[in-house]
């Protein structure tokens, strides 16, 4: 009985990882409003936008940065792969950016994918991120380095 259970569990696990590798569940999607002029960004541009080094899009609309709640996997992924900072460094960075006048405030924290999606959908200039499988038609998912979440070689992987 135990052997059977083990085999079924193993088969199920393999099936899961197989399915997981082919879809976008494990990717972090960058989202903007549907009217945003952005469609495709490079990793460097994305870092500049989220670090507030680039404050406006080509349409002249000011970016409104959002982040996710402390402790979430999405936030941890964004810190590691976009900001390339740890939590403490992130706090210090935006405090110093506020101090030097680079930004008016730190990115606004969104509690959950639903809130992040809703805020980005209705706020001009808002940009955020969520688990790719949580994205829907209410927002636009950006290509990063020419690739969409779920596509082979997409760089932002949830960790």
């Amino acid at each position: 009985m135990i052997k059977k259970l083990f085999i079924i569990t193993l088969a199920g696990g393999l099936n899961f990882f197989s399915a997981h590798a082919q879809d976008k569940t494990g990717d972090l999607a960058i989202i903007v409003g549907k009217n945003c002029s952005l469609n495709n960004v490079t990793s460097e541009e994305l870092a500049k936008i989220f670090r507030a080094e680039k404050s406006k899009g080509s349409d002249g609309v000011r970016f409104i940065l959002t982040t996710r709640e402390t402790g979430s996997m999405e936030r941890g992924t964004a810190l590691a792969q976009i900001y390339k900072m740890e939590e403490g460094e992130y706090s210090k960075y935006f405090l110093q950016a506020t101090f030097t006048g680079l930004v008016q405030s730190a990115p606004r924290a969104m509690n959950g994918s639903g809130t992040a999606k809703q805020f980005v959908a209705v706020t001009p200039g808002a940009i955020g991120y969520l688990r790719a499988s949580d994205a829907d038609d209410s927002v636009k998912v950006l290509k990063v380095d020419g690739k969409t979440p779920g596509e082979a070689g997409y760089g932002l992987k949830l960790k």
Partner: protein
Amino acid sequence: MKKRSAPFASKKFPRTASLPLLLTALATSAAAAEPATALPANVDREFLEKLVSRVNQSESELKDLKAQMAMKNGETASAMPAAPQFPNLQFHGFADISYHWSSREGINNASGVPYNPPGTHSGNSFYTGEFDLFLQSQLAEDLSVLNETVIASSTENEWGLDVERLMLSWTPSEYFNVDFGRFHTAMGYYNTAYHHGTWFQNAVGRPNFLEYEDAGGLLPVHSVGLSIHGAIPSGGLNAAYFFEVANGRNYNTMSGQVQNVADNNSGKAINVQLIAKPDWLTSSQFGVGAYHDFLSPEGLANTDEWIFSAHGIYHTALWEFMAEGFLIRHRMSGDRAHYTPLAYAQIARKFGKFTPYARFTYANASANDLIYTTILNQAGVHYGPSLGIRYDFSTYAALKLQYDYAHDSGFHNGSEVTVQAAFTF
């Protein structure tokens, strides 16, 4: 013979044993694009639906817990979207408390003047540093106000209050932004990267020649006027410009150098700086600048002042390397030009909560420049290394220990040790 569907179908199956299987199947169904076809036909769908419902409930509870954690950590998590509201006043505070020891306490120079190195305090003393109150408020999408007011004690142990920065900023474009008021002169890197909160910087203080005007610094750290700045379309070079028009210095033994209200001559200081943050060397910044002012120093002839600057910075999460050089040119009416070179280099490497650092500072204030010999009393060669370590014992508080060895021509060489607790709140 038992049915193969028993593990999923049987409600009698031990719950603890069935959970991994159910979760595995559930994960498979969630990951697959078409769960109905991806699942085995003999799975009890009703039971799975109940399980999905329980997982959703658990996820919802987990999100609530995370939100509570975020709120506990001081972060304002948005419960629902809301349009920005103006004005949105923010407040931050910075402060430091230190102990300083100097081997040169009580020593006078050859003229009998007590040794008083810029930016330092008497030897063997505890001292309260700057109590820095920082306010910022966005008034509209493109308009904000920034204020930094510092309460600090002088070497006479009297508290004083200084408005260090007060500026109205209009930011209509990536390429054109205007600051109007009192600000830190865009001269080099350190002066605008670090302001009055010592918590931000690794070392206990600024390089000596970059100290504030009332603490013996040699550069026009603060300006009152207009600063226009923005990006320059330059592809991967990521260039930016600063153009500033401001009241210049007032070298006068009886009043402050920064001319907050009245300019002692009609000449305005002009400052231009160009910087670049090239993509090919991420985390780096390079810059050059030129500053010009007409000075009317007390008791001296009018003086034409040029300050040229260049800097190279490399700053990552782990490494910090900063090198800056300045050249001050003073030419008094009827006299030849005198040059004062200033430079420092600093390197730091973060190891977890510890950041050891080293800095070397050099200044050679021309002994023939009457502004340095008769007004500032800073003429001569000043150089020396600084070694220190910063310990971030909290996210918003750090302890620093720094040793300085200083050579000052005309004074005795000496050592200094500073222990500083710097924090933000």
